[in-house]
């Protein structure tokens, strides 16, 4: 151990710059992710829980904004999707800079686990607590948004848009929901990965803008977004004015699968969470761990 330390110290002697203000290089980023994993594992359970409630609230704020800015669009589908995605970036800006524990983003600290800096138990505990906290946060915002009657905007069109979006999500087949979940969390984790490269807020916000806009615009499935969107749709389904607005938008809609247990939990959340885990842990964390952090062994 002491040998290794000496070696690294002497090899660094001629490369240490006095002041370094450049963006972090990928190898350095991988190192930082590893350290962040250790820091997160050190947080007390209560802190992680409180921060993950905040993350659920932040995601729901972004999701409602993205619903709102697109709900009256009748043409230019693609452009409106992009604008909705850009608005959703709000959520990730809040999470990354203000600090919160998001289930999907935390998949990235699998790198720390793979590099054996934290135990599997620490990693699993963080994911489980943040999942529960995110759920509670998102449901809290369902309550607040419902009370604010914001869904009555544009003659209940906003409510109709939310119900229809939720209905689309619960009617996806397992394979499709899983694949969209994989793609979604690959992009979320890439967004967070890019943030580790930046130093200032500006760096981080601009780095987040592109991957997050892309994932919402492309309609990929993010499990925490769905924790707000689908329960909101289920609550609004009971409102007759919203139902009338839906009828005006697209005639009769079959909302029979829009239920909490069967529709939301089984048909949507299970495949999407599995997809998110696969996309974040295997495709991003695993690949970057393999490239930058794996122990150098000759095969």
């Amino acid at each position, binding site marked *: 151990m002491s040998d290794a330390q000496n070696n690294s110290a002497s090899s660094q002697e001629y490369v240490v710059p006095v002041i370094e203000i450049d963006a972090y290089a990928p190898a350095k980023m991988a190192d930082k992710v590893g*350290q962040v994993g250790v820091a997160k594992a*050190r947080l007390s359970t209560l802190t992680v829980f409180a921060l993950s409630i905040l993350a659920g609230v932040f995601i729901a704020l972004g999701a409602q904004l993205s619903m709102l*800015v697109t709900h009256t669009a009748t043409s230019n589908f693609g452009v*409106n999707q992009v604008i909705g995605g850009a608005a959703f970036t*709000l959520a990730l*800006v809040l999470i990354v*800079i203000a600090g919160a524990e998001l289930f999907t983003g935390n998949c990235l600290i699998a790198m720390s686990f793979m590099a054996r800096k934290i135990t599997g138990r620490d990693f699993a505990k963080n994911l489980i607590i943040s999942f529960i906290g995110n759920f509670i946060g998102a449901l809290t915002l369902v309550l*607040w948004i419902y009370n604010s009657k914001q869904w009555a905007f544009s003659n209940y069109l906003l409510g109709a848009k939310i119900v229809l979006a939720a209905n689309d999500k619960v009617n996806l087949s397992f394979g499709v929901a899983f694949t969209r979940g994989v793609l979604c969390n690959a992009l979320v984790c890439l967004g967070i990965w890019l943030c580790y490269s930046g130093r200032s*807020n500006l760096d981080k*916000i601009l780095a987040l803008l592109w991957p997050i806009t892309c994932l919402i615009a492309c309609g990929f499935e993010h499990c925490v977004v769905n924790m707000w969107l689908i329960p909101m749709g289920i609550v609004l389904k009971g409102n007759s004015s919203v139902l009338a607005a839906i009828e005006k938008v697209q005639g009769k809609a079959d909302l029979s699968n829009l239920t909490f247990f069967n529709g939301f939990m089984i048909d949507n959340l299970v495949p999407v969470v599995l997809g998110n885990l696969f996309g974040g842990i295997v495709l991003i964390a695993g690949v970057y761990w393999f490239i930058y952090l794996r122990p150098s062994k000759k095969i």
Partner: protein
Amino acid sequence: MKEINAPKPIKILDMDAYSPPQIADRIDKVASVKAKLTFAQTFMLGILAGVYIGFGAQFATLATSDSTLHFGLTSLIAGTVFSFGLMLVVIGGAELFTGNCLIIMGYVSRRITTREMLNNWTVSFIGNLVGSLTLVLWIYKSHQWELFHHMVGGKALLIANTKVNLDFNAAFARGVLCNSMVCLAIWLCFSGRSVADKVMSILFPIGGFVASGFEHCVANMYFIPIGVLLKKNAAVVAAAEKMAGKTLDLSHLTWKGFFIDNLIPVTIGNIVGGVILVGIMFWFVYLRPQINLSFSVKQDFFRDKK
């Protein structure tokens, strides 16, 4: 596990954005700076904040007055231009009542007294009201609301009329959501170092809350009084009715409607959102004294050793 025990290198120059625990620490300290301001300073800075937010509000009214884009996009544009108001407050420096809800963090960690905190809130609230009403007067005298066939005034009237006709619950819930986002914007700003950081940090939360139609008590101190004044102008009412496509019931748009139906529920909501949902929540996460409420014995043991 060796890395944890290894001595940490000392950073001489730190260029990175402040991390959340550092932000909490900085806001905690700012509270005592704000509490030390004299009455006159707080009041004058409060007036400035009212004027600044009023500028953002009138800009948003103007930008959306003749929009033929769809509703969602129009509100997004309104939000984006409104964030100019908070940029002036944060970068230019002013005492905004809603943003000052965050000094609760300094109160809970006993840096400032109850009296100092309440003093700051009351004085900045009154200052904001005075500032906003001053701007209402100037904008009214400028006849800017005559632009584009009185459409700017018509839009201002429609905005004000919607706001005074909210029921208590909706106004309260929108107030809570609004000030959570305002305080989060301030929180993000404390993370940034440069002006560009701050501008970008403000853009998303403030643009977001205005676009979502949430209720900000200081913005309403501009939006509603200007509507009350413009109600008397027949050309503006005609423009507003043309824009809405129906005859308008403006009976609630009075000073009583402003104070009772809107300002009270919105202010209570703003206090709940800023103080409890953001201030206390972040204090709990980052600044609370170490109490052993944690469920894991092993982790507590671990933390003590550090």
